[in-house]
Every structure is written in C-alpha cells, then in structure tokens.
C-alpha cells in the first residue's frame, strides 16, 4: 500500500495528550479566574439595544444620558460602525443587566433620551433584542435536550458502526475524542469572551456530527490493514500505518472545509460582523480539533487500552495454567502472575497465532464477497 507519511503517532501520543490536557488546563484556569463565561440573553433573559450615532461624543456623556432614562443598570460596549459609509460613525451597545425583558416603551424612553440630548448625532436603533427570563430558560432546556438527543443518536450510531470495526473499546475512545472537541469549542467561546448563544448550540451540534467521521474512517482502515498486514504486526504498527495512509485524505478534507469556513471567518473579521465571527471561529477550531483528536487522541488511547487488555488477558490465562499444573503447591497468586510477566514476551506470538486463524477466516469470507461483487460490476 502506498504511504506518503511515516509519522509514529502512537509513540508520540503522550505529547499529544500533554498538549490537549495542557491547553484545557490553561483555559480552565483562565476561565475560572480571569475570563468568566458569559451567557447570552437568549438563555438568561434580558435586553440588548445597539445604537449607531455619528460624530464624536464622550462615552461618559452617553452612559450618563442612558442611565438617567431608566432605573435598570446598563452595561455599555462601544465600537466603530463599519457598516456605515460615514467614516465617523460609531456604535454603542446597551445591555440591561437585570435579566428581564424591558418593554418597548422603556426602550423608546432611552432612545428618546438620546435624541433629545444629542439631536445632531443621528441616534438610531440598529439592533435590539429582548427576551423574557422564563422563555430564555425554556429555550436553554430545549437546546440542552437537543444536544443530549444528538449525543445519544451519535453514540448509538457509533456503537452500531464500531461493532464491526474496533469493538466497544474503539467506540468509547471515539466518544472520548468527541468530548475533547466539545470542551475545546466551549473554551473558544470562553476565551474570546463570546456569550454562549444559539451559535454555540449550532457549533456544538455540528461538531457532534463531524468529529466522529474521521475516527470512523481511520478505524475502517485499521480493520482493513489488520487483514493485510498479517498477525505479526502489532496493534500500534497497524494503527500507525492506517493513520498515515488516511492522512492525505484527512489533510485535504480539512483544507477544503477550512477554506470554506475560513473564508467566512476572514470576511466577517474584515467586516466586523460579530454574529458571524462567534459562529465561524469556534466552528473552525472545532473542525480542526475534530480532525486532530481522531488521530492524536482516539486511536492512541485505543492502542493503549488494547495493549493493556491484551496483557491482562495473558496474565489471567497464565495464572490459570500455572494454578492448574502446580495444584499441589500452594504458591501464592502473586508469584504466578510475576512468572506470567516474565514469560509474557514468549507467549505473545502464541497468542497472536490464535488471532491469525480467526482473521484468516474473516478474510476469506470477505474476499469471496469482494470477488462476487467485482464480477457483478465487470459484466
């Protein structure tokens, strides 16, 4: 089989685990102590009104005028208004922080206060959104239910699919990688101080669907190569070969997907459109993470698990055998298992031989069906 890359993913796996855990740890600490998570008013309830105005005004003046017009406490965010052809146009965003929907009348009062105080500055409502707290909570539960439903369906699919390719253990590792990606997506929102909103739910759902794809493709290759490479190849060797063979595809697909979502991100950064940035940026990071985690997390973890369980199986068998043959001696189990450890290397080939018989059988039946379908296409 043609293979462009020769990277030992399994050997380096500890580095990858370290990188992932390190990033998560740093983000977690920052998240707790420096940048707290913000939740959008879509979930908490509350009101945000964005005004555009022209000309130079002191921020303090604006905050004072607005604060006088309402009893609620307001937090302000100022920005340039890039959407306007007027180069001296600005935006101010008012968030009414008491988590309740203000009425249209209350909002009108603030607007009126602005136009009265600054009649020459063209104060205009560009965007407003107001959500009742109870409705926000309902929407939040709806989103959570959707994410859970999606997770259940995806895990169900993984379970069915992995029965064929790597067994339960591989499925579990695929889910671990998935959780890894979701955590990364969450931290993108937290670190860039983007409020958790409908975009967050959309990205989480999307990553739920996307992340297991790469993993499934690689496990499919592993199953195929297991047959081709024969019983002598270790799990690590087969996995490495499979990942390297898939690497071109993984890289190319990631590049085209990145090109698509990346151009959305770049353009929205240039045009400064917040609602798209908070969609495209986490999506992009999530997609990269999805691809990284299948190669650097899911498969190496599975190989570790597999080696470990193989070892345990051998120990058990050995322990049984020695217990049976040395029935008279009342030697402790610890001694037996020590022996097993010592003899592990010798017994490995024997174990592998057993496996190979099974594999050959599988291969034969698979080959037969392959031939049958080939005949069909050649007709």
């Amino acid at each position, binding site marked *: 089989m043609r293979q462009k890359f020769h990277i030992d993913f399994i050997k380096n796996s500890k580095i990858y685990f370290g990188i992932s855990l390190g990033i998560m740890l740093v983000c977690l600490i920052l998240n707790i102590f420096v940048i707290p998570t913000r939740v959008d008013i879509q979930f908490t309830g509350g009101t945000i009104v964005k005004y555009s105005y022209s000309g130079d005004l002191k921020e303090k003046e604006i905050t004072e005028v607005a604060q006088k017009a309402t009893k609620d406490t307001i937090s302000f965010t100022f920005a340039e208004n890039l959407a*306007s052809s007027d180069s001296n146009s600005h935006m101010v965003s008012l968030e009414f922080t008491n988590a309740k929907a203000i009425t249209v009348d209350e909002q009108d009062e603030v607007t009126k206060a602005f136009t009265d105080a600054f009649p020459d500055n063209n104060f205009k409502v560009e965007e*407003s959104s107001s959500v009742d707290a109870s409705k926000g909570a309902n929407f939040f539960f709806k989103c959570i239910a959707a994410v859970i439903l999606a997770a259940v369906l995806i895990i169900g699919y993984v379970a069915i699919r992995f029965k064929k390719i790597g067994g339960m253990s591989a499925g579990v590792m695929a889910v671990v990688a998935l959780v890894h990606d979701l955590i990364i997506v969450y931290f993108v929102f937290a670190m860039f101080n983007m409020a958790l909103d409908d975009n967050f739910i959309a990205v989480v759902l*999307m990553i739920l669907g996307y992340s297991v794809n790469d993993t499934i493709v690689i496990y499919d290759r592993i199953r195929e190569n297991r047959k081709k490479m024969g019983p002598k190849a270790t799990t690590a060797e087969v996995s490495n070969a499979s990942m390297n063979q898939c690497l071109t595809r993984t890289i190319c697909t990631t*590049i*085209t997907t990145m090109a*698509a979502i990346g151009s959305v991100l770049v353009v929205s950064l240039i045009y400064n459109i917040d609602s798209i940035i908070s969609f495209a940026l986490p999506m992009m990071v999530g997609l990269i993470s999805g691809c990284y985690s299948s190669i650097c997390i899911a498969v190496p973890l599975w190989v570790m698990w597999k080696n470990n369980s193989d070892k345990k199986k051998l120990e058990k068998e050995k322990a049984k055998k020695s217990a049976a043959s040395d029935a008279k001696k009342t030697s402790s189990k610890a001694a037996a298992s020590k022996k097993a450890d010592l003899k592990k290397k010798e017994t490995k080939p024997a174990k592998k031989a057993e496996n190979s018989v099974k594999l050959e059988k599988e291969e034969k039946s698979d080959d037969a069906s392959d031939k049958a379908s080939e005949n069909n296409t050649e007709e």
Partner: protein
Amino acid sequence: MKRVGKWVFFVVFILILFFTYTSVFGIYGENGDYSITYIKGIQDIRWGIDIKGGVEAVFAPADGVDATDDQMNAVKSIIDLRLVNQNVTDYELYPDFSNDRITVRFPWKSDEENYDPGEAIKELASTAQMVFRGGSEKDGEELLTGKEVNRAYVSTIETGNGNHSIVVNLEFTDEGKQKFAEATKKYQGQKISIWMDDTCISAPTVNSVITDGKCYIEGGSDKNGGFTAEEATALANKINAGALPFNLKIESYGTISPSLGTYALTAMGIASIAALCFIFIFMVAVYRLPGFVAFIALLGQLSVSIMAVSGYFPVFASFTMTIPGIAGMILSIGMGVDANIITAERIKDELWTGKTLDGCIAKGTKSSLSAIIDGNITIIIVAIILILVFGPANIFSSLFGVSTTGLIYAFGYTLLVGVIANFIMGVAASRLMLRSVSGLKFLRNRRLYGGKKKS
C-alpha cells in the same frame, strides 16, 4: 466494468452549467411593461430578517392565562389582520398551541425610511378593539363591543331543497343579548357592521329582531352567495379575537436595521466566491482530472442547494434564508468535496498497484462508498436536530416551547440539503462524469489521476 458513453460527461457537464447559471441568475422575460419570472434566481430568495432587517417577536397571553386552541387561532387571525393592515405581506407567523405562544417575523418595509419597528410590535400586541356599529360606515352608532360577544363559531344550516350553506354563528353574553336585541330592533332591514381596529370585517343585514342572543351571519363569495369554509373560519376567528378575554404580552422581541443586514449579505457573498475559488485551485492542483470533475460536481451541488431555497422548482416552496443559512451552504461545499477526495485517494492507491485505469476507477469508487456514507449519516442526524430545535412549530417545540431565535433554522436546512445535493452531485454525477471522461483517449494518461506515468 461497464463503460459509460463518452458523451455522458458532456451532457452532465452542460446540464450542471445550465442549472448553476439559471439557479444563480434565474430566467426572466418581458411582456410589455411586465417582467415575468420563469425561473427564480438568487435575487428572488426570501431573505430573513437578519439580512433584510426586520422584526421578530413572540407573543403570549398576559398574566399566565391558559388559552384554548380556538383562542390561539383568534390571536393568530388578529395578528394576520393587523400585519396586512400595516401593509406587511411578507411575514411569517407560527402559532404554538401547546405552549400558547405565537411567533411573528417580518422584514423591514423597504419603502419606509423611518419605520418604527417598536411601534409595529406594540400595535400587533395591543388589545383588539371590536365594535358593532349601526350601518356600514365607520362613524356609525356604537352598538356593542367585543366584550359582549361570548364566542363565534362555524356551522352549516339547511337552506331548503337539500342545500346547505356555511354560516358564522354568534353568541352574546347576557349583557350583549339585551343590547343586541335593541340594536336589531332599531336596525331591522339595515346593516350592522363589525369593526376590528378600524377595519370592517363584516357588514350583515339584519333580517329580524334577535332576542335570544344567538344569531348567524350568511353570505360570502361562494358560488351560491354563501361562505366558503375558509372564509367562515377566518371571520369567526376574527370575531373571537375581538372577544378575547385576555391581553397579549410581548414575551421577546428583536429588531435589526436593514443597513446592518445588507452589509452582512455582501460579506457572505464574497466569502462564498472566495471559498469556491480556493477549492477549485486546490482540487485541480492536488487531484488533477478527478479534482476538476469534483469541482464541476460541486457547482452542481451548490446549484441544487440554491434551488432548494429560491423556489426554483415551483413544487418546493421557497425558504427564508438567513446568514447562518448561507454559512451552512458554504460549509457544506467545503465538506462536500470530501466525497470526491476519498474517491480520488482510493483511485490513486489502486493506480499504484498497477491495475488498469478502468479497474482502478471501478475499485476506487466502490471501496470509498462506505466511508462517504459514514461521513454523511452523522451530519444528517445533526442537521435534522438543528431543524427541530430552531425551526418553527414542530414536535420538539411543542415539548419545550418556541425558540427565542430562529436564525439557525436555515443553517440546519442548508446543511441537510447540502448532504442530499452532495449525494446527487458529488457522488452520483461525479462518478458518472469520471467514468465517462476516462473513456476519452487523450485523458487516459494515468498521471491525470495521480498515478505513475505508465506501468
């Protein structure tokens, strides 16, 4: 392998170009001063409020009143009526009966400079003012108000000769009963009109004095001069709206100005062109001939996606497109190439084993199918869930209530359409093209497929 005719490639190629062109630009004709739309293009897409600017609001009965389905229908019809009165025709209205919510979305009116969306929302939620007046004029004597109406409902009556006609029944409260008896006495043989916020919704003639507080209204546009079922229901709903025992409250609302939206649309347009250009260069550079074929298929996929939102085929209703929807379309282009990449990689692999070109293409396309299906199934699951969460009334929203925002709905939709289009174009059409094109002599060089020169 069964050979595919050489002409197939050109047929598919030209068809895709045709679909791409028409789905983007549409086909329009002129008939004198009128322009006729034969096929809808991008300019006919119904843009969501985040692009056109507009208003989104959710109304609910105030004070936690548990409204009946009939009452919710009444609420819907009054909002309908008011929107039409405000000259808003391009609106979306989603009642949610299980949670007693009603969601309204409508775009900014393009002709009005100083449109006040806040005012519009307030007007929609204001208490319906229903008045019965003597005569058919607006300044006629005020006889009864909506408070004195118990309910209105539709039924059929026999009109003799075995004919039936549909009528709208009215039931008054005890107070209304008396007032109505007096009114019918006074206006017997004349008209009594029913007014809803300054709009006359019905003006029946009084045939007799009615003292039991029950009457029915006949007439309408049916061929026998009676109501059609729809007309009758609409009228009954409107009357019920005037008699609603509760006020509406604005539970959440949002407004977006049009300047912000058009700006975002330009940005997304640039993004999609940039993405397409990059993918074209990348695919041709890396995969050569299969890469070129993949790009043509991609254009086809894009045109199918556009068709699904623009109403290209009149059978499929047009869809309200939002910015996340466009993002979904662009994303599905990027992911759609995956099918072609997997296939092209497999063909490359096969070529290195030294088989014949046809054999390699056959084997490569066959062995890649399961991976392609794998990749798409999970996306389909997710897309459907996105549609359920953010979409208007469906099973999911009857459990959890309507969403505070519906912009992501289009993302789920374009994602789902993208996957389906990908199977049609990226898988089926591109395979057909590849097999066909590999029959052309000058394109049989193995290097064009990523293989070695000649084994």
